[in-house]
């Protein structure tokens, strides 16, 4: 297990640096002059000179990358172009909102999706199985931004029972929870279907295994067989999926953050890309990438702990 863990951590570090380099290069290849985009078409020569100096735009791309990588290694993510605020501060002041949204979104999806998958798997090819299949595919197929707007129109404008915009009053947990409901619903709905389909497929496979048949032959209660023996094994690929999904939501929830006017890392990255605020983009993506890799690493380690065969595969 230790060797597996070390290999997996080493791989994660390589992935972080690769992602950083690719992103850095991509940002430089965006069409248009970054100065014109960042400062507007009528920027003064003084502002252009200051922006170029701050962004090291007169240096080669390689030098720019090395400067950034060196600073990042020492924990210095730089400062924003205009406001000169610390990028680390900017990222970490909105990160909790994104983490909360991701946990809430994926959390409710797990609460509904996993039982839904189990429910379908123990009644294969029945009418109920087909209905859950339709529900699952339906939630996957509907684009999340459509769900967001629909939920906003219905619950906030038509019924007026849930708030539409923002993250709630600071210090007011109830208000913040109410502001979380619609974004979490929108973000998590597609995952209900994913998780249900994944759990159903895994469960069907596991339910045909000899040890399950043996348990049934011994007369163990049905609930015990499903939840204690079958689901415990069938859940393994789902854990990996949840890890990937959580990481994806950290930056992928940007649509919900924009539509619901919530602070978040995805929105910070989106705004910074459109404004060519490279230090913020790079810093935020670095943090997100690191969290993503940590989460998937944890998921992989959990799976490896539960399934020894996985340890041999790396």
């Amino acid at each position: 297990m230790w060797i597996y863990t070390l290999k997996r951590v080493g791989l994660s570090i390589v992935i972080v640096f690769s992602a950083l380099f690719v992103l850095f290069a991509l940002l430089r290849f965006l069409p248009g002059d970054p100065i014109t985009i960042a400062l507007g078409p009528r920027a003064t020569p003084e502002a252009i000179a200051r922006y170029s100096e701050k962004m090291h735009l007169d240096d080669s791309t390689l030098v720019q990358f090395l400067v950034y990588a060196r600073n990042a290694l020492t924990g210095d993510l730089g400062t924003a172009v205009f406001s000169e605020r610390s990028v680390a501060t900017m990222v970490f002041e909105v990160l909790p909102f994104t983490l909360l949204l991701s946990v809430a979104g994926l959390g409710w999806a797990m609460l509904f999706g996993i039982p839904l998958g189990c429910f379908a798997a123990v009644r294969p090819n029945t009418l109920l199985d087909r209905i859950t299949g339709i529900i699952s595919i339906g939630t996957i197929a509907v684009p999340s931004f459509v769900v967001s707007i629909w939920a906003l129109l219905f619950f906030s404008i038509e019924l007026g029972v849930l708030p539409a915009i923002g993250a709630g009053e600071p210090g007011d947990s109830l208000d913040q929870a109410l502001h979380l409901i619609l974004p979490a619903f929108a973000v998590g709905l597609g995952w209900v279907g994913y998780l249900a389909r994944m759990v159903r497929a895994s469960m069907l496979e596991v339910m045909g295994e000899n040890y399950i048949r043996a348990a049934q032959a011994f007369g163990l209660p049905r609930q015990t067989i499903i939840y204690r023996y079958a689901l415990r094994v069938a859940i393994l690929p789902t854990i990996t999926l949840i890890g990937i999904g959580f990481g994806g939501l950290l930056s992928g929830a940007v649509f919900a953050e924009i539509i619901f006017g919530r602070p978040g890392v995805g929105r910070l990255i989106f705004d910074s890309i459109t404004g060519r605020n490279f230090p913020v983009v790079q810093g935020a993506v670095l943090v997100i990438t690191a969290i993503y890799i940590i989460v998937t690493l944890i998921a992989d380690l959990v799976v490896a702990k539960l399934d020894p065969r996985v340890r041999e595969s790396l």
Partner: protein
Amino acid sequence: MPTIKLTRRQVLASSLAAGAAGAFGVVPSFGKAQDNVLYVRFDSDLAVIDPGYMVGGVDIETQKAVMPSLVEYATLPDGALGWQATVYCNSVTQRDDLHIDFELKPGFMWTNGYGELTADDVKYSFERMKTTDWSGNFDPMERVDVSGPYTGTIVLNTPFAPFPMVTLAAGPATVLSRKAMDAVGGQFTTEFPATCGPYVLQWAPQQRITFLPNPEWTGPAPAFSEIRALIIEEDRAAELAFEAGEVACTEITPATVARYGDTPPDGSSIKVAGALQYMWMGMNTEHPKLSDIRVRQAIQHAVDVDSVIQGAYSGTTEKSNGIVCPGLVGHRTATKYSYDPEKAAALLEEAGVSGLELDIKTLNVQERILAAQIIQANLGAIGINATVTPVDSGPFWEMGSEAAGEQWKDLELWIMRFGTAPDPYECTQWFRRDQVGVWNWERWSDDEFEALYLEGLSETNSDRRNEIYLRMQEIMEDTGAYLWINHEPETFIYRNDVAIDVYPSGEMDLRDFRPA
């Protein structure tokens, strides 16, 4: 460890109670006006609020709520846009072409113990601006002479009639505290070292900017106990927030103006703050396909601009006849050309042109792409085969720039929109001879235009200025290089229990928001 145990029956009962409360309208009020708290929408987060290095927009709206200035926009008795002294001044008077006298009211105190607002603060602030990113606004200013604690004179280095409108009433003329600025090293980004306004500022990045009453304020009491500006970047989301009752005022898009039509949601009204933007289709006079003026004139006659405005903007914007915007001196009310496809075809035939293929470039914005497509259809009707090429903002703003390479030589037609200050000098400057290959992408120049531009800067007689700018636009139109399209307005929707004040450039002046 204490635990909460709920039976299934209890959970069901709680859910039913919550549902019943919702059904009978016993629901929380989310962000609506409570305890004289006003909620408005800001369309972006703060960037830099130092007037010397700001980005604009929200930065200016924030400055206006918490910082002093000498002059503000005002609607004159004749309905035209003008300026007046702010609450901070007893008077601001243009003594002659080169001198503007001002007298501050005594007793306005800076926060954080930086003393009283004085004429020396004005001198420091304006002279400092000459060395900042926004120095261009202060180029015509020589210096500020201080004659007393509250009195002084702004001295111009050349007669410049628009100075009060385009500089003093705008964001760059925010007054700072000299002592506070010295204490922070002469520059700041997102935290004022000292403020002097009816409100003070609290900022939650990406969430809201809260304006609370300033306990040291000695001017007229602020109308609200708190103003919360929610940061909602997406226009449609802001409109939904308004409909949900979570903000009392927001800017809306032309599409939404059309959707509401004459019947905005109950209890709300729509206000057009101004239309300081002008859009046109430009033609590159040096492109071989367009070098014959008859071809350009044919294009002017071929396009039905009314259809463009109806189709792309649902009829919600004002047709333009030049670059000077409505409400300003020099605004044109008619063009010399008109929609006449037969005349357009005749001009093409006279020029010996057939099978002409042209490319229309536009920013990748829904309304402008639609406008380009309607123009494309109009051109097709006279035998011009046009293609529409949407371009992202980065490459778009370089298309006609000589500094960006040789691509300007391939530029044929493009849809362009500029914003402007509330004075005609500002919009004419981009079409001068020295702007060819910079912003004059149509690439023409004219001696009379140059002379009139200089005359317009120093002329203070409004009738003469009107003549000057009308003639300048006529010269532009006579080049055949311009098809005037529209002036897009800055339109706001607001609840009827609030009286709003919005600049013609679309910035809210929260100091003057009041309960209606």
